[in-house]
């Protein structure tokens, strides 16, 4: 059982939902990434998703893309990211997962990448460009190491295909709220509640919703139908303020923002 499986067993027993912030690693540097993760967990985030900067992220909107570009322009390397995360994991009570392109995993070697996550106490990975057909080798590698390989279901996924994805995903299912790229949205599609409701009836796996979520109202509306909610661009955008402001106040701002979402979750 991975740390994520344990987390959701606990949350379901307590009838609680997860809030899962996404942060870009190395924007503007890894010290700040570590500080933000610790702050968000201290505020009550159940889990943190760490984006590994990638040069060609086709699923990402302008905010996350720009954060990846800033990090890569600083010369960020995977080894340094994992080293930093390895120092953070013993200090926090919440699991970390990496959001990482298959290009990066393949280059490092599937087993080597998975071994490194294990050594650093990281619970799993979301690989946004690895559809279920291409995932068996990585799924096997993850399974052997008790790592979660979290797969995605989207509004364009037909139902029979969604069922197939539930069979191979582990940790939780990532339900993408909109057909599109990451980024804050004011409106979320009206069919969303129904679709997630259907999916949750099909599988014992927890279902978390991500993409577009940014407002306490979104959280209030979606939390009842899901096991957790993922918030990305809204956090990354606030983290970028560190360029114009100081670290302590940016940390405070990001923390306060997440606190408003956590309040809405209760």
């Amino acid at each position, binding site marked *: 059982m991975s740390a994520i499986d344990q987390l959701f067993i606990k949350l379901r027993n307590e009838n609680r939902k997860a809030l899962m912030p996404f942060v870009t690693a190395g924007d503007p540097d890894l010290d700040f990434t570590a500080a933000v993760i610790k702050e968000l967990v201290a505020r009550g985030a159940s889990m943190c998703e760490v984006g590994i900067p990638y040069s060609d*992220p086709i699923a990402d909107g302008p905010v996350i893309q720009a954060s990846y570009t800033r990090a890569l322009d600083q010369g960020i390397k995977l080894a340094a990211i994992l080293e930093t995360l390895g120092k953070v994991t013993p200090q926090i009570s919440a699991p970390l997962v990496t959001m990482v392109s298959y290009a990066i995993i*393949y280059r490092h070697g599937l087993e080597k990448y998975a071994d490194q996550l294990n050594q650093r106490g990281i619970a799993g990975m979301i690989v946004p460009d690895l*559809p279920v057909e291409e995932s068996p080798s990585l799924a096997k590698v993850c399974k052997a190491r008790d790592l979660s390989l979290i797969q995605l279901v989207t509004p364009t996924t037909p139902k029979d295909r969604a069922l197939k994805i539930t069979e191979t995903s582990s940790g939780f299912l990532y339900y993408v709220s909109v057909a599109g790229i990451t980024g804050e949205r004011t409106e979320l599609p009206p069919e969303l509640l129904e679709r997630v409701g259907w999916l949750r009836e099909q599988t014992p796996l927890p279902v978390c919703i991500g993409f577009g979520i940014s407002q306490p109202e979104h959280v209030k509306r979606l939390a009842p139908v899901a096991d957790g909610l993922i918030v990305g661009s809204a956090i990354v955008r606030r983290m970028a303020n560190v360029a114009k402001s100081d670290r302590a106040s940016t940390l405070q701002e990001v923390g306060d923002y997440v606190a408003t979402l956590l309040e809405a979750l209760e």
Partner: protein
Amino acid sequence: MPTAPHADSCSANVPDAAGRFGKFGGRFVPETLVHALDLLAAEYDAARQDASFQAELDELLKNYVGRASPLYFAKRLTEHCGGAEIWLKREDLNHTGAHKINNTIGQALLTLRMGKKRVIAETGAGQHGVATATACAHFGLDCVVYMGEEDIRRQAPNVFSMKLLGAEVRPVTSGSRTLRDAINEAMRDWMSSVESTHYILGSVVGPHPFPRIVRDFQSVIGRETIQQCRERFQCLPEVVVACVGGGSNAAGMFYPFVEHSDVALVGVEAGGRGNQPGDHASPLTYGSPGVLHGSFSYVMQDEDGQTCDVHSMSAGLDYPGVGPEHSYWKETGRVDYTSCTDKDAMNAFDALARLEGILPALESSHAIAKAMEIASQRSSSDRVAVCLSGRGDKDAAEIARLKNDITT
């Protein structure tokens, strides 16, 4: 030139149902796009079985595109090189001036079959953008073309043409502001628009089924060449040469020759200013297998799997990846891949202009340069067929700017 060593293990019967050419290809894209790719693959399979689809395509290729394109004996160029005969497959004489239209007409017909009304495309040299805008004007489809800012600068005439044809050209300002970034941006558009929009990808790259569809639509080049060779000199050429950006003109030229294992196939990548990382765009020569733009193939990448910046003076070759079938042909040894520098391509441009009265595209000039080199090393009884993938009018201003830098 010797026949490739493991040519026997190379099959023309690729890709498989998962889009694999040997171990290359596949589909590494966000889940959001998978269903649309499945539908596209199914629609394409249906179209291939449909005689009326094929008839409509053939009619358009003949009367709208102007096919068959000539196979022209370059007599003075041959004499200049002093060896094998050089024959040019004149894709530059197609409507819109390059091979790209073979693919866009085919994919526009697929767009209509799928009931979609909007088309998006990426472009580097602007030839694919113009060919897409043209097909969309012809069929009354909405058209948006993504183009890197650097390419907008160096291929300005094509930007103007696209606008005249009614397309919207969206400048891409991220990354290196070239073809690679334009593909990223087109993919992102498609992530949100996939249910109403078809993405007419312009080369044999990207996720399955694009590498296969584009190769098939471009294969008219090689099929005609084989027929024309048989008519003109009753046998096949000893060597066939094409330039490789994403690899569509080369795939279209080579594919029908793959099973003729006594014909040597030579793909020419952009050698840029030299063999240091960042100075060229030759993933098959200097890169390694990895994932880019939805496909597993050779790519220029760093030790972390980040795509590297590349360089070529030619916008259409300035791309860090290459189609998966080329990686397969490389690994099976069926095709020899080599590269040609900016400078040698520029010299070949001059030679073809002055000796034959043909201005080739800078992309195609890379193939001409290598063909001249090969011809000069072979006997006069041999024949080298070159894919002259496009015409050079679009490059005139950029060539004027570059001339002092590059030619000696």
